[in-house]
Structure formats: structure tokens, C-alpha cells
């Protein structure tokens, strides 16, 4: 039997910095907007049963409102990041 080879394999995220909130219902949507952008709230629960993708079709919803559980841990201030090393801004 041929072995199954995956192009994309989902796996748990490394950090538990995101919490689940009630998702918003969205209308079906073809022609999804593309172009990645960075923002503070652009995260999702690591065990999402929901689908918080922006601009996706049918019965899905957008999760911009899903916020970090602990804002200090998930979104450290510049000082916290640099002094405590919780999110090293200089890389590792």
C-alpha cells in the first residue's frame, strides 16, 4: 500500500498564548482576500474547532477578536520583551 505523504500537516502550536472566544458568524465568501499582514490579534486557539480565517467561504467566521489569554505573555511590551526575555526582540 502506498504511504500517505502530506504537503501540509497540522500540529499543535508551541505556545498556549491564545484563548477561544465566541466566534462571529460570517457569511459565505468566495474570492478570499489574500496578502498576509501582521497584527496583534491575528492568532487562533491551538485546538480550534472553529475556523477563524479571514474572508473564507460558508459558515465560517473571522477571529480578529480572539485575543491572547495573558496579554503580558502573548504580547509583551517592548520593555518586558527586552528586559525579561519573554519575547526576545533581538532573536535568539
Amino acid at each position, binding site marked *: 500500500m502506498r504511504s*500517505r*505523504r*502530506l*504537503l*501540509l*500537516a*497540522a*500540529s*499543535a*502550536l*508551541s*505556545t498556549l*498564548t491564545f484563548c477561544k472566544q465566541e466566534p462571529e458568524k*460570517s*457569511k*459565505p*465568501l*468566495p*474570492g*478570499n*482576500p*489574500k*496578502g*498576509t*499582514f*501582521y*497584527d*496583534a*490579534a*491575528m*492568532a*487562533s486557539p*491551538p*485546538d*480550534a474547532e472553529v*475556523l477563524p*480565517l*479571514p*474572508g*473564507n*467561504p*460558508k*459558515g465560517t467566521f*473571522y477571529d*480578529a477578536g480572539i485575543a491572547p489569554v495573558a496579554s503580558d*505573555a*502573548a*504580547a*509583551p*511590551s*517592548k520593555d*518586558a*520583551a*527586552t528586559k525579561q526575555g519573554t*519575547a*526576545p*526582540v*533581538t*532573536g*535568539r
Partner: protein
Amino acid sequence: MKEAFDLEWMGGVAEKHFRKVRPGVDELPWGTLDVSRYPVELVDRARVSWTEAAYNEYCTAVAFSEMLGALLAAKAPIDLIGMASDFMADEILHVELTSRIAMDLGGGAPYQIDFDDLGVRPSPELSPLQRANQLVVHVCCVGEAFSLPMLASAYQSALHPLTKQVLQRIVHDEAPHGRFGFLYLDWASEQLDDAERQRLGEIAVDTIELFAPLWQRLTSRVQDGVTTEGYLLEHVRELGWTESSLYATRARAAIEDEVIAPLAKYGIAVPRERLAKLLA
């Protein structure tokens, strides 16, 4: 039924043929994103983001497949349908590229997807032409026309060779997708009455309304090369993102310049009152 957003790759003959129609993929600098350079939380966010990108490309492929059926039912010109047929391979290639970046970053994000429920199906009570009009306006005149400048912005922002080259490829491929919508309207326009133009204007603004949270909810800012959350802008850009305040500015401009103005040339007016709220 929802299941993990895992995607299979067959290899062998299938891969060989796919590479023949869309070459130059294996030459990209895969494996060069050094995740140890970045805070682990930022890598997680990037995995989420590139998984979402793969999902969006996958859904666009579904939308194009439905659009192609509608174009055939509406007896659109064969060369126009042939042009759109090529978009399917583009979107599937983009699924591959974005998925591979997610995997290079550590794997796809754990989304649960109903693969049987990814498309949009216009009401069967509509005529074949009306169904085609609706899908083309949704997918191409709004979705793809808006996406192109946003992808170009991400490409301009990207600092790592892998994210840069992947975004360059996607931008290159996407350009005709938005253009297609207005070529279609060149053909269909004479067959549209006032009521249909008004309906299409509503469809356009409905789609824009769904996109609006993308630019309305952004909160991150950059000061002295560091984001509000404490991440280096350099890292954000290496991972292939547009910084959020720049995205918000460009998104609003893209809606006005690439969607509203071209549609107006075909007598498809987007209701200004609704639009004003969405672009505020």
C-alpha cells in the same frame, strides 16, 4: 464533517505533470527560514498566518471551479473560459507554496475544516448568466482585485528570500485573476439590465463588508522598529507580513481604486452609504 486542515501530496507522475505546467517550485530556497531567530510566539503566529493563506488559496480554487461551471452554463466566450481555467492551477500552486512555508515554520496550524462546505452556490433560481455574474463579481472583481495590491504590499515588505520569492510568484500569477472579472464584464455588460447591475452592486458591497474587519480591527503599531507587542519589525517582515497600519491604509485604497472605480465603469454602483461605513 470537520477534519484537520491536512493536505496530501501524491508525488510521482502527478507531481511530474503538475511541475510541467507550473515549474520552478523546487528551486525556491526552501528550508532557509531559521525559526530559532524569532520569538516562539511570533513563529506560532506565522504558522497560523501561512496556514490561513493556504486555506484562502484552497477556497479560491473551490470558488474558481464553481465559477467555471457557471461560465460554461452561461455560454461565455470559450477563450475567456480558457483564461479562467488556467487560474485553477495557479491557486493550487499557491496552496502548495503557502503550505510549504507553514511546514518550514514547524507545521500547519490546527484548524478544523469542513472540506465539503467551502464554496458559494448562488441561488438555483437565478439564470445561468446571473449566477456567473454573481460569482465573477464576488471572486474576481472584488476578491482577487482587492487581493492583488495587498499581496504586492506583502511582497514589497518581505525581507527573507523565501517569503519574498513565494509572494513574488503569487503576485505574478494573481494579476490576471482580477483583470478577468472586468474582461468578463466587457462581454456580459450589454446583457445586464438596471436591476441586475443594482444586484451586483449589492453583492460587491456584501463582499467588501466581509473583508472590512481585516482593516477595521487592526491594533498593532510600530515604533522605532518594534511592534506594540514587542516584536522586531524586521522579523515581522522576514516572516512575510505587511505591518498592520500600512495594511489598513493600503486596503482602503485598494477597495476604492481597484474595486469601486472599475465596477462603476460598468454601471455597477456600490451603495455609497454602506461603503462609507466600511471604509471609515
